[in-house]
C-alpha cells in the first residue's frame, strides 16, 4: 500500500510509511476501544435492567432471582459451603465427571468415526442405527444409568460420554469423508500401506473437524454431568441445583450457573490453545487478517 501512494512534497518515503503505520495503529486502537465500550454497555443494560425490574417489582424476584442476591448466594456458597461439603468439593466432583466423560466420549468418538468413515461397508451397515440412536433423547439415558449404576460418579461419566460421543463421532466421520482423494491416491502410488494412509492423510485431515467439535463437546460433557447429578447424586453442583430448586431458591441456581459458566469458559480457552498448536498450519482466519 505504501509504495503505491505518491510521496508528499518534502516528506521522505520512509517517514510517510511510519506515519501511515501510526495512523493504522490508532484506527485499530479506536475500534477496539469502541468494541469494549459496547460490550460493557450491554452487560450493564442486561444485569442492571434485571436488578431494576426485580427491585421495582415488575418481575417477581421470588421466581427469577436478583443479581445482588445471586452475588450473595455465590459468596455464601464459597464462604459457608453447602449441606454436602464445600463448594470446591462439589465443583471438583462435577468437573471430574465432566472431564472423564469428555475424554471417554472423545476417544470412542474419534476411533469409531475414523473407522466407519474409512470403511464404506461398515458405515453403510451401521449408519442407520447410529442415526436412530442419535434421534432418541439421550439425556433420558441418565435415568437408566442411575438405576443401573447407582448414585456414584460412574453413571455421570457415562451420560457425559454419551453426549460427547455423538458430537465428536459425527465430526470425525465427516472429516474422514472430506479427505482429498487426490492426496490419498498420491500417497498410495508412493507405496503407502493403509495404516500409513491413515497416519499421513486421513487423521491429520479429519483433525480440523474433530477439534472444531471439541468446543461444543466440552459443553455437552458438563451438561451430561449436571443433568445426571440433578437426576440423583450424593455430591456435585447438580445436586446443589436440585436442592435449591426444592427450597425455591433461584439465586443459588443462578450462582451455580455462574460457577459452571466460568469453568466451561476456562476449558474452552484450553481447547482453543490446543487448537492453535495443532492446527498452526492453517491459513490465518480471514476476519483476523482484516482487523487492521
Amino acid at each position, binding site marked *: 500500500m505504501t509504495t503505491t501512494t505518491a510521496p508528499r512534497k518534502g516528506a521522505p518515503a520512509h517517514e510517510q510509511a511510519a506515519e501511515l503505520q501510526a495512523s493504522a495503529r490508532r484506527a485499530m486502537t479506536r475500534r477496539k476501544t469502541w468494541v469494549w465500550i459496547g460490550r460493557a454497555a450491554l452487560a450493564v443494560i442486561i444485569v442492571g435492567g434485571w436488578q431494576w425490574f426485580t427491585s421495582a417489582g415488575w418481575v417477581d424476584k421470588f421466581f427469577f432471582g436478583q443479581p445482588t442476591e445471586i452475588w450473595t448466594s455465590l459468596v455464601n456458597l464459597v464462604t459457608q459451603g453447602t449441606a454436602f461439603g464445600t463448594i470446591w468439593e462439589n465443583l471438583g466432583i462435577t468437573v471430574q465427571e465432566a472431564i472423564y466423560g469428555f475424554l471417554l466420549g472423545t476417544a470412542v468418538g474419534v476411533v469409531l468415526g475414523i473407522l466407519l468413515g474409512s470403511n464404506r461397508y461398515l458405515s453403510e451397515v451401521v449408519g442407520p442405527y447410529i442415526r436412530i440412536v442419535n434421534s432418541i433423547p439421550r439425556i433420558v439415558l441418565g435415568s437408566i444409568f442411575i438405576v443401573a449404576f447407582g448414585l456414584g460418579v460412574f453413571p455421570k461419566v457415562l451420560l457425559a460420554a454419551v453426549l460427547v460421543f455423538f458430537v465428536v463421532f459425527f465430526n470425525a466421520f465427516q472429516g474422514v469423508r472430506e479427505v482429498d482423494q487426490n*492426496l490419498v*491416491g498420491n*500417497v*498410495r*502410488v508412493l507405496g503407502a500401506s493403509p495404516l500409513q494412509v491413515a497416519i*499421513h492423510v486421513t487423521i*491429520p485431515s479429519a483433525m480440523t473437524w474433530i477439534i472444531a467439535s471439541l468446543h461444543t463437546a466440552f459443553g455437552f460433557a458438563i451438561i451430561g454431568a449436571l443433568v445426571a447429578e440433578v437426576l440423583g447424586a450424593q455430591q456435585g453442583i447438580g445436586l446443589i441445583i436440585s436442592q435449591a430448586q426444592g427450597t425455591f431458591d433461584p439465586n443459588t441456581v443462578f450462582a451455580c450457573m455462574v460457577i459452571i459458566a466460568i469453568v466451561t469458559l476456562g476449558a474452552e480457552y484450553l481447547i482453543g490453545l490446543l487448537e492453535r498448536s495443532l492446527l498452526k*498450519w*492453517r*491459513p490465518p482466519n480471514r476476519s483476523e487478517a482484516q482487523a487492521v
Partner: protein
Amino acid sequence: MNANNPKRPPEVPERAEDAAGIDIVGLTKRYLTPKGETFTAIRDVTLKVEPGQFCAIVGPTGCGKSTTLAQVSGLEQPSAGSVSVHDQIVDGITKGVSYMFQADALFPWKTVLGNVLIGPVLLGTPKREATVLARDWLRRVGLAGFEDRYPHQLSGGMRKRVAMAAALINNPRILLMDEPFGALDVQTKAIMQNELLQLWEELRPSVLFITHDLDEAVALSDKVVIMTSSPGTIKDVFAIDLPRPRGDVQQIRHEGRFLELQGQIWESLKDEVTRAYNLSAGAAA
C-alpha cells in the same frame, strides 16, 4: 531389494534403460453408476510408451484421460484388457510411479520440507537421509530457504514446484501428470514447462502427460495421442520429431515444424472437440 526398487540417490540418475515402458492393450474401464447402470469410460485403448518417452494425451473433456492414468498407476483395475509396465502386468499399485495432479495434492498440514520427504519416508528411508534428499530436491526446484513454509504461504507456481520435487524425489520410472499446469497463469505455466523439461532430461522417466493445451503437448512431448470422447478411445497418434533438447518452450512455438505439427493435430482434434461440445450442448438443451 529387487532391481525395480525406485529408492536411488538422485545424484546418479540412471537413464532411459532404467525407465519403464508402458504397454496398454485393449484397455476398457466400466464404472457402476449409483443407479446401478454401467458407464464405459474408456474402450479398447491400445497405446505403447517407450522407456523414457514423453507422451501427451489430448482430448475433449470427459474422454477418460484421467481414467487411463488411474489404470496405469494401479489405483484402479481395468475391466478388460491390460496394462503392462516393464513387461509386467499391472496388478495392484505399480512400483516406481509418481503422480502429479492439477489441484496440487500437497499436505496442507506439512511444511514444504515435510511434503517433499514423504516419498522416501514411505519407502522406508530413514528420516535423516530423507531430509537431506528433500533439501537437495528443494534446491533443484529453486525453493531453498522455503523449507519451513506451509503450502498456503506459497504462490501457485511455488506449490507446483513443491509438487514436482515431491513427485521426482523417488526418481520414478514413470511420471503420470494429470493436467499438472492447468490451473496456472500463462507466464508461470511457461516457466514450469521449461523446468519440467530440464528435470525430465536429467532423469528421463517415461511420462504420460494429460493436457487440454495443444501447444503444451507439442512443445513438451515425443508423442501426442488424441482421444475421442464417451467412451474414450484412441483416435490418432502423432510422433513429434522436434529435436531435443527443446530449450525454451516459448521460442519453439514459433518454429515452422512446430506450427506444421500443431496444425495437423488440431485438424484431428477439432472434430472431436466439436462433437463433444455438441453432445454436451444437446444434453444441456
